[in-house]
């Protein structure tokens, strides 16, 4: 039973979290300390607000508590000059305005949050570290939650976070908004991290649930935040639109038994219309900025699915064009695979198969399970007996339970 007041407080604390950590990192220059103080303050808020009610300005309230906790922690833990400098900065801030965010305008808060995001997604950190730090420092997930999401033992994830924070401190990785010259490539890293978080939730490739929606929800939350902070970046809105379109199909993606339902077979009345509307608005915003990119193209493709009443009604010719543009801008084997599937739906399985059987693609995707399952599907439609081998190859390569069941079922239908 979810207590509504409790739930609202938790929601509020979560929403305040990135602002809180960003402010503290800006003042302390120490991510580990900022997180610890923010965690302390969040726990105090969860307790006190339940008893005393939610304060008028929850953000200011929680920031004040966090600063005090940071002072306590510095006094206990730090040594020498560093301690003195940090205390001086914090106390100056507290003296100017104890308890309020005045003098800490919206712009500054926006810049601090962006600086936090760019710092967590710094290219000098490993991708695993970028993901873990972003979920922890920006998303406010606990180490245990992140570990569960990525199916690693909690001590492993804790170790990963400790190492990442140690590298940030030792190598002096800065929390700052990159210069214009590097902004585009640095933003690409941020988008990549969000994409990986979303994807991990979407296909739990090592787990047993087809969808781990906590990670997709978290990626969407982060993407919404980034779109608010970078309102003029087209690809940021494009990525948000992409996530939302895909998420809108979640209720239809698995059946009651937890088995996969392919796009073609989904009950489209189950698609979440609110999310589709939000996705369309984000895509429109992106396109109005007139700076096309891969995420917008992928979102547009998914937008065409969202508009169509069924697979047959889908504008496959338009989707083929969008995939061609996508492979021009981002020529990866997986894009070619998707193009081939669209070509098959627009012009028949033989045309798609021709693209799939190109020797270069076959070699590059030899170990990629979706290559073999897509190929199997086209062969099946052509009544080609080679479909069986392709399904078996896909089966060998998957370690996801629902996918295994799905492929085995298709293989059964083939032989019966």
């Amino acid at each position, binding site marked *: 039973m979810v207590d509504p007041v409790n739930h609202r407080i938790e929601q509020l604390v979560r929403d305040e979290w990135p602002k809180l950590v960003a402010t503290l990192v800006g003042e302390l220059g120490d991510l580990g300390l900022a997180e610890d103080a923010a965690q302390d303050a969040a726990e105090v808020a969860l307790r006190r607000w339940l008893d005393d009610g939610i304060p008028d300005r929850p953000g200011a309230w929680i920031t004040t508590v966090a600063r005090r906790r940071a002072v306590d922690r510095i006094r206990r833990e730090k040594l020498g000059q560093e301690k003195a400098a940090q205390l001086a900065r914090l106390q100056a801030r507290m003296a100017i305005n104890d308890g309020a965010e005045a003098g800490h305008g919206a712009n500054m808060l926006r810049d601090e949050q962006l600086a936090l995001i760019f710092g967590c997604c710094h290219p000098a950190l490993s991708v695993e570290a970028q993901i873990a730090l972003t979920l922890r420092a920006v998303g406010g997930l606990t180490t245990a939650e992140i570990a569960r999401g990525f199916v690693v033992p909690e001590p492993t994830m804790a170790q990963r976070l400790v190492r990442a924070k140690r590298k940030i401190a030792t190598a*002096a990785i*800065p929390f*700052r908004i990159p210069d214009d010259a590097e902004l585009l490539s640095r933003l690409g890293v941020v988008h990549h991290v969000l994409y990986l978080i979303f994807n991990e939730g979407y296909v739990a490739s090592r787990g047993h649930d087809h969808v781990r929606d906590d990670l997709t929800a978290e990626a969407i939350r982060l993407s919404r935040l980034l779109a608010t902070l970078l309102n003029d970046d087209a690809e940021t809105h494009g990525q948000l639109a992409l996530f939302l379109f895909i998420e809108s199909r979640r209720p239809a993606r698995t059946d009651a038994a937890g088995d996969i339902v392919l796009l073609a077979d989904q009950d489209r009345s189950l698609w979440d219309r609110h999310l589709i509307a939000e996705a369309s608005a984000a895509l429109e915003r992106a396109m109005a900025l007139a700076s096309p990119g891969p995420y917008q193209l992928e979102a547009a493709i998914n937008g065409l699915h969202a508009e169509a009443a069924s697979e047959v009604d889908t504008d496959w010719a338009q989707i083929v064009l969008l995939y061609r543009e996508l492979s021009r801008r981002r020529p990866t084997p997986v894009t070619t695979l998707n193009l081939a599937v669209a070509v098959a739906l627009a012009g028949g399985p033989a045309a798609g198969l021709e693209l799939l059987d190109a020797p270069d693609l076959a070699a590059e995707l030899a170990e990629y399970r979706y290559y073999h399952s897509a190929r199997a599907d086209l062969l099946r439609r052509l009544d080609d007996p080679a479909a069986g081998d392709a399904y078996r190859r896909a089966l060998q390569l998957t370690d996801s339970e629902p996918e295994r069941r799905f492929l085995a079922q298709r293989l059964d239908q083939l032989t019966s």
Partner: protein
Amino acid sequence: MKYACLIYSDENDAVANPDPASPEFQPMMAGYVKFGEESTAAGVNLGGEPLANTSSATSVQLRDGEIITTDGPFAETKEQLGGFYILDCDSLDEAISWAAKIPHAATGTIEVRPVPDFSQAG
């Protein structure tokens, strides 16, 4: 904050490391002179040295009080340490932007390593 920029490249690659007698050698050296001037003018260059090829290296170990010397570098690798700079920068981002200007960044790899300050250690 001090950073060591360790310059790695394939010493047997004539493009990355042209022979001093070849015409390609001078432009490369000019690149280093330019880097030295720029980084010194910006006040970040605390020094640096080129290293002779690993074929001239000797590895030394002390075992049970005895000096053991071996011909060659510590590790045989495809790219070798060919020189270094010590730079004084505010952050890793600044160090990275300087490292990218070292001529061998274009043909080899610059490893950026923070130089820890132990002066405050207890």
